[in-house]
Each structure stands twice: as structure tokens, then as C-alpha cells.
């Protein structure tokens, strides 16, 4: 914590590695939620 943050710098894009990791994780979780089949449990459907 007590150190300067690491940054990703590519052209005009400048973002801290921590924020970049969070965004990548959000995209991964979003894609997984769409692609992974939902278990067909005992719940009732309409």
C-alpha cells in the first residue's frame, strides 16, 4: 500500500494496473454469466 501505484500507459490511455484488473475481471464475469449454462434445478418456471 505504501508505494506508488503501477500504471499501464499505451498512447493516450493511462490507467492504474489495479483499475485495469478490476475492469478485466468485470468483463470476464459478465462473459461467464452469459456463456455458462444456468443449472436447471428444481425451481418452477413459467
Amino acid at each position: 500500500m505504501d508505494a506508488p501505484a503501477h500504471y499501464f500507459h499505451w498512447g493516450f490511455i493511462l490507467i492504474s494496473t489495479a483499475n485495469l484488473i478490476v475492469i478485466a475481471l468485470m468483463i470476464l464475469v459478465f462473459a461467464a454469466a452469459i456463456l455458462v449454462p444456468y443449472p436447471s434445478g428444481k425451481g418452477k418456471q413459467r
Partner: protein
Amino acid sequence: MSWTSSLQRKLSEGLPYDQLLPDEQPAYVHSYVYLFGVATIGSFVLLVVTGVILAAFGPQWWHGAAVGHFFNSLHFWAAQAFFFFMVVHLWTAFFQGAWRDGRGLTWVSGVVTFLVSIVTAFTGYVSQQNFDSQWIATQGKDAMNSVGVGAFFNVLNFGQMYGFHVFIMPVVVAGLMGVHLTLVRLRGVVRPYDLPGPSKRRVSEVA
């Protein structure tokens, strides 16, 4: 008819008692993407519980004691989870066009909740009582002054920011979430877009 009777009739028609906690949903809701809203609510509950404990013991405890540190971290990570799930929920709603078929107010109430949550998080960051919060407050004051609210919303005033963070903002966020959830219950989950092409079955046929 009085406004109370009219409200009572509207609520009993729109939200019948036996359907307040439904145990079935349309077939198209059978996907993980529909869980991010409730994950956001779960994170909010954790935020309130850990926040109440932090408020009860105070800054010296959350910075000095081991258990205080633990609850401080729980509150911090609950905030990360809250925004993480809220943003993915926002993506889900956006790509499904969740404002369609009379659901405009549901979408707008969600957007307003998101914006108010950002202000809530900001008041939390400046209430930490450490060098980080001092740095954020001294940087943030210029932003507040530039938009003309610095006189009413003084980010260098710990008491004011703490009051906003532990009472005013959580009540506003909880109220907005209540409105958002009520609208979701009243209007239901939006149907997915129909698949293009004449050979594909339409959602209205399978749902």
C-alpha cells in the same frame, strides 16, 4: 377518492400480497446475468452491517485494533463488490434494452442510484481519517468549488462528510433501491430482443 385509498388500490393491484416474493420467473430469466442485481443488494447489506459496527467503535478502533482493521477491510471490499456487481448489472440492463415496454423509470431510477452511490463512496473515502482521506479531500475540494457547491458540501469538514456518509447518503441510496426494486416488481423483467431472421423462433414463442 382520497390519495391514501388511491395509493392503496394501486399497490394492491400492482403488487398483490401473494406475489410479493415470487417463486417463479419467466423462462428467459434462467441465466446467471440476472443475479447481478441481487448481488448488489447483498453487498449493500454487508456495507450497512459493517458500517454500523465501524460507526459504533470509531476511527481509532478501525485504524488501531486488529478486529477494527478486519471490519475496515470488510467495509472496503464490500464497497468494491457493490460497485463491481452494480456496473455488471448496468451492462446487463443496457445490452438488453431494459428501458423498453414502459420500463423507462426503472432504468432512470437505477442510473440515479448509481450516481448517488458514487457520491456516497466519495464521502466514505474522505471519512477514513488517514493521510489517504486528507489527500482525496484536498484534491476533491477544488472539484466541489469549481461546480459551486463547496460552501454547502465542504469535503475538508470531517463531521459533515461523516454525517453524510453514515446517515444521509445510505438512507437516500436505500430509498432509491427500494423505488428501483418496486418498479422491477411492478413491471417485471424485460423480454430479451427477438433473434433476427425469419427462421429463428421468437422469444414470445418460447417464453
